[in-house]
């Protein structure tokens, strides 16, 4: 009987929906019938994905993240991802131990972490000059989405200490050498990809006046030049954020040549959200370690291949300037539908990379389609990539 009563309570207000809305008192009747379905607070979450690119076989991954409080002040974090990719010419499974660390926090202001950690610096969306750990190693190919590379890379084994203040923090990160080379074995923790050399980082966050927030960084390591950096973000009005970040270090260019001089990395960006639930980001990316335009245009053959590989290894663009545009439209056309689009425009060789996606997302399941295409002359940054499609489904647990 209570079930029937509940049904009636829902049906009655539905009759008032002819004009797409409910009278206020009908809304209350609808609310009377609402049933909460509490979700248990689990320390374990993950994702299963099955996807297929046009012309390829089905592939997928399973990821798991455990974030558990062992006892007050002690916390254990484990993040792992197992990729299945049944293509010829490579292992069918590749496991990535992304994070595994123990955290001790004797007080709310002090923390010490040890283990494999994936720290993240910077405030921009498409490229982070402050993210000095971005070359820590991807064991599987990431999608064009910049978040994909960040989410899937290996963490770095390190000791991290942090002192927090009311409106900022200071921290130190120390990473030792654990192996001299990457280990492509499917189940290897691959210490060589993440800890090929000793590295360290000092960082501080400071609240500026008004809505200005800044991050400061000084990084270095064995055989590496000092790398200072700064990031800042600011709120402009109700719907716009402005941000920028830059770092610099004395080094040769990505090809290993050129004079050893200060070479900067930088981003300037702007984010805007419209009342229609559309969020846009526009960023200008600068890579002072890349070759000059004429040298890039002249690269050919093996030298071209070596240069592209060197840029890929340090997760930097092969040219000096790019535009990056990103759009995310929640509830596009109908509730639960999300549309995304991204454009990378290389200002040096005028090549472009487009991607667009549409996905429906429920509480546990997302289904979607992505498309991407590169445009440009052969040998340009994005040239040579034909249009391709991907179908995917994600299951969250």
């Amino acid at each position, binding site marked *: 009987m209570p079930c029937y009563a509940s049904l009636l309570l829902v049906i009655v207000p539905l009759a008032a929906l002819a004009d797409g809305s409910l009278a206020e008192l009908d809304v*209350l009747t609808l609310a009377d019938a609402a049933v*909460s379905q*509490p979700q248990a607070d689990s320390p374990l979450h993950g994702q299963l994905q099955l996807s297929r690119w046009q012309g390829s076989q089905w592939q997928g991954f399973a990821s798991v*993240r455990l974030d558990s*409080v062992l006892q007050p002040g002690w916390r254990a974090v484990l993040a792992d991802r197992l990729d299945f990719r049944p293509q010829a010419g490579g292992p069918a499974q590749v496991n990535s131990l992304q994070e595994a660390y123990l955290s001790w926090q004797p007080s709310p202001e002090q923390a010490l972490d040890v283990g494999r950690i994936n720290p993240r610096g910077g405030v921009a969306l498409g490229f982070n000059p402050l993210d000095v750990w971005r070359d820590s190693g991807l064991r599987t190919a990431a999608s064009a989405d910049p978040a994909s590379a960040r989410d899937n890379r290996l963490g770095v084994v390190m000791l991290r200490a*942090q002192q*927090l203040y009311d409106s900022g923090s200071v921290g130190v990160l120390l990473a030792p050498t654990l192996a001299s080379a990457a280990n492509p074995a499917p189940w290897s923790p691959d210490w060589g990809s993440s800890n090929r050399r000793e590295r360290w980082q000092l960082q501080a966050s400071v609240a500026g006046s008004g809505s200005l927030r800044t991050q400061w960084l000084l990084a270095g390591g064995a055989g590496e030049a000092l790398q200072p950096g700064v990031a800042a973000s600011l709120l402009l009005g*109700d719907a716009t954020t402005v941000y920028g970040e830059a770092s610099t270090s004395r080094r040769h260019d990505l090809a290993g040549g050129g004079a050893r001089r200060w070479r900067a990395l930088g981003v300037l960006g702007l*984010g805007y959200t419209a009342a229609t639930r559309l969020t846009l980001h526009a960023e200008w990316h600068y890579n002072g370690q890349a070759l000059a335009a004429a040298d890039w245009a002249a690269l050919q053959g093996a030298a071209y291949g070596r240069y592209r590989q060197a840029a890929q290894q340090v997760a930097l663009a092969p040219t000096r300037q790019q535009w990056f545009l990103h759009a995310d439209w929640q509830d596009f056309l109908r509730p639960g539908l999300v549309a995304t689009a991204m454009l990378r425009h290389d200002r040096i060789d005028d090549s472009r990379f487009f991607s667009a996606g549409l996905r429906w997302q429920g509480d546990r399941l*997302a289904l979607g389609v992505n498309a991407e295409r590169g445009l440009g002359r052969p040998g340009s940054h994005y040239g040579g990539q034909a249009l391709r499609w991907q179908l995917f489904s994600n299951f969250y647990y």
Partner: protein
Amino acid sequence: MRNILFTLLLAAGLAQAAPDAQQLLAASDAIRNPGQSFSLDNTLIEYRNGREQGQTQLQIYARPASDSGQYRNLIRFLAPLRDAGKLMLKNGNELWFYDPASKASVRISPQQRLLGQAANGDVMTVNLARDYRARLDGEEAIQDGERQTRACYRLALQASHDDVTYPRITLWVDAANSRPIKGQFYSDSGRLLKTAFYRRYQLQLGVQRPSETVIIDGLDPSWITVMRIGNLVARDIPETWLQRDYLPRFRAE
């Protein structure tokens, strides 16, 4: 003596006829929010055109700011599962969103926050008397959230500065006990953004407080959100929790 008594009665009568709107607002705030740091569980059930679209489950940690007295919120997502573990920090208009998958703390604008269900949580944890000038706009008998006719004071609230989500609010408070009954939240241009019914009053932290708020979207009236509050407890929220750098460290104990 008779004259003094008459004067007092007249003064009392006048006072009753025209209560102080700002005090009414402050009393109404005190019913919605404890005056100290607290945490609560918040379940948001979302309907479109009468059909349930999904549920969002949040844990909200709130601490009054020492300068503004306004609440600073740390909001943790438990459901839907695709958002589990994500955090949002709200310190006035400074907003950060943290995703444990990417470790990214992304700065978002107040407009961007309004797109999510978490924004509805703020309808609860806002001290209106701090940010708005209240004017008594009249007395009115309205249907409350339980469909009972209730004698109310209608308060017209005007934001006293720009750093608020809703520049103008109409709030109906119970004439008998200052309980908030209904609110209408407007944009700068006078557009109705939200209508909220505060209802299902229960004893929480020693005071009868609304345990449920029914929110009707002003731009899309077929979009209804039922927001339920539970497990309201007073607790210490350290100042260090309420900053961007703490987000990767936060773990509810």
